[in-house]
């Protein structure tokens, strides 16, 4: 009675279920394509010829190069610039050059912040009577080339309460250049420091100035007993000048100069070096290299400070490099693959190039573009660390760009990263912090949970 009907029913059920299953799978796989090997793209040749491609395909070049100064090169790769500089040799010189860029960025930030801070303070509640701050902001203005402004501040500094400040202001008033030594420092600590900076630049020796930079160089006590400490506004300028000369003393060539840079080929590097020597902004080395243009990565920032335009450039770069990296990875020897991935050579190439591009944007007066570039370039897995993919220049560019666009508090985030690694940058951090405090006054103070 049951069996024939129910067995038929059972097979029907199975058939139904099976059909449904196959249908689902078929629908799910609609548009399947078999896993073909990724296409490296037409620009593979250019990238293959770059230092990253070259080293990956012939790892022996790398070991030959690096073995000459293992400590220096590995520090340079990891962006531990002071350590690389100490190791000397070619990597030492290159590190000195990069440090010069860094201090240069921060010198501009410092002077900018001093001016903005004092001006804001004055407009809010007026500067305290006879404070030494007028001297320091004058010095900062002088260093950044604004001699008229500097003179105006020194004129006011002559009325400072502290006689040493008044005296120093008296000496510097009427002087619009830093290229002459002082006749006599008069035992005045401020003038002595000024002289020390002059000596350092003349003799191209830092002479312990960086170590002293971790502390304030002057303290004043107000009538109410409040102590104000001031840091050295000249420090970064001196460091930049000295280190740039140091870097120039030992020029590198060939692969020595090319490795871990943002340029693809030696021709690029030669061309770019010539451009900078002819008046291009320092720190933008490789930003306008022709090989990148061949890959469709055009550094044309446009007329306006359009952040989207900048992001498009970065996306073009990723679109060129990502497929090449995938394809290259398949064709390498074990050593080469380990080199490519272990040191993340394409990532290093990308980050150095983008740093140069971001500085180029800053030089063109496009801070938002610079910020956008750095934000996309940053390795977010280690967001506040300096590492192979996050050169200290990223944070310096971020700080400058944020400051220029009025985001002082955000600039402090970037400066904190640098101050942790370079204690002598405490001065920049403090003055930008003071600016942030002044800009945050009178705002409605609010807090919320979560």
């Amino acid at each position, binding site marked *: 009675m*049951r069996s024939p009907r*129910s067995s038929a*029913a*059972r097979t029907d*059920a199975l058939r139904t279920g099976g059909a449904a299953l196959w249908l689902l799978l078929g*629908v*799910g*796989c*609609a*548009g*399947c*394509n078999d*896993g073909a090997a990724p296409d490296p793209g037409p620009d593979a040749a250019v990238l293959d010829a770059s230092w990253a491609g070259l080293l990956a395909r012939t790892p022996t070049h790398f070991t030959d190069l690096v073995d000459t100064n293992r400590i220096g090169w590995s520090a340079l790769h990891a962006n531990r610039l002071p350590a690389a500089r100490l190791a000397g040799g070619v990597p030492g010189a290159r590190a000195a050059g990069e440090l010069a860029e860094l201090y240069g960025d921060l010198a501009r930030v410092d002077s900018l912040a001093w001016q903005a801070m004092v001006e804001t303070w004055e407009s809010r509640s007026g500067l305290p009577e006879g404070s030494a701050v007028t001297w320091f902001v004058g010095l900062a203005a002088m260093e950044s080339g604004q001699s008229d402004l500097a003179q105006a501040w020194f004129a006011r500094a002559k009325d400072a309460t502290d006689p040493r400040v008044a005296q120093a202001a008296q000496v510097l008033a009427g002087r619009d250049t830093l290229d002459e030594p002082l006749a006599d420092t008069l035992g005045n600590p401020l003038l002595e420091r000024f002289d020390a900076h002059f000596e350092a630049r003349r003799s191209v020796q830092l002479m312990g100035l960086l170590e002293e930079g971790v502390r304030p160089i002057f303290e004043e006590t107000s009538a109410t007993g409040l102590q104000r400490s001031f840091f050295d506004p000249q420090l970064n300028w001196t460091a930049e000048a000295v280190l740039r000369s140091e870097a120039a003393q030992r020029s590198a060539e060939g692969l020595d100069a090319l490795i871990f840079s943002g340029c693809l080929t030696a021709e690029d590097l030669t061309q770019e070096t010539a451009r900078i020597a002819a008046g291009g902004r320092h720190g933008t080395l490789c930003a306008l290299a022709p090989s990148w243009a061949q890959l469709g990565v055009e550094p044309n920032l446009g007329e306006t400070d359009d952040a989207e335009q900048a992001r498009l450039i970065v996306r073009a770069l990723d679109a060129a490099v990502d497929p090449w990296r995938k394809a290259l990875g398949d064709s390498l020897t074990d050593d080469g693959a380990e080199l490519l991935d272990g040191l993340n050579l394409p990532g290093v190439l990308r980050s150095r190039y983008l740093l140069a591009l971001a500085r180029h944007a800053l030089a063109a007066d496009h801070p938002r573009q610079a910020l956008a570039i750095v934000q996309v370039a940053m390795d977010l897995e280690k967001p506040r660390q300096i590492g192979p993919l996050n050169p200290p220049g990223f944070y310096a560019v971020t700080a400058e760009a944020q400051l220029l666009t009025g985001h002082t508090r955000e600039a402090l985030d970037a400066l904190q990263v640098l101050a942790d690694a370079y204690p002598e940058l405490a001065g920049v951090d403090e003055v930008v912090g003071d600016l942030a405090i002044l800009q945050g006054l009178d705002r409605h103070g609010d807090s919320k949970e979560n």
Partner: protein
Amino acid sequence: MSAPPPDRRRQLALLSALGRRFGAFVLTLLGAALLAQVLLWSAPGDAADLLAGDPELRAALVVEMGLDRPPHVAWWAFVTHALGGDLGRSLTYRPGMAVLELVQPAALRSLVLVVGALVVSLLVGTALAYVTAGRRSLGRRLLQAVSIAPVFLMAWVLVVGLNEWAFELMLQDRIVRPSWFALPDQESLLKWALAIGVLAVGSSAVTEVHSACEDELKAIRRSGYVDAARARGARLWPHVLWNLVPPLTTIASSRAAFFVGGLVVVEKVLHLNGVGAMLWQACRLRDVPLALGITFVAAAVVCGARLLADVLRVTVDPRLRTQT
């Protein structure tokens, strides 16, 4: 005077039975509302806490929202208004909006789910019972095993599994994005189908229907009138089905409560915005009028279903009219 005639007596008995049922219905509504009110009252924090941190403002809000009344007073106020059709106004979910207005669209959506689950469980349970009647089948054991799993787990596994699998394939460029992808996103048939399926299986409705039907089918198949029908060459299924109606209505009405209870979970996992999800939000936001309103409506639906099932059963099965 002699006793009332037997018919009359039967009618009276029937009416009094239905009357008792109705009384139970009203009591259930009141009880459900009281339970909900007490639970919410005893929960730490209230609507005024959520809206204001400042103590003065909070005190003023408490008075304005009537949160300073003891729970039985608030409950009585709610019930008297509710029976007149006014379920109050939401406090924190959509402040100021009438609860009835808020609950209506959500209730309709949930009704689709519940009715859908009911229909599916009846159909599937019956069909399965018909196919596997009596035998210890693998399918039945599998079904029982699955029914034991908690509703939310099933729903979650389905949603996540489907989405993850499809997403992996999309990432590997093997397929283009199917339109049903991201289940919480679009109103697709698949989402509703999943919800109904999970609700039906998860509240053990399918297995219950299945076992009840199995028993009935065994009894029916052994019965004399089926043999007689077969002997005459008449169709069997009208007899069988008609005889299945009483047990099925019993199960349907008893499962209704589980369907409504399972709504909260299914709606949350599949993001369906029915009364279940709304009740969860109302409790989280201490929106007493809304929570009470939903509880009231849900209790009304469940009790109403039982009442309806009773009426249906009595109508279908003449034997019950005498049994009362």
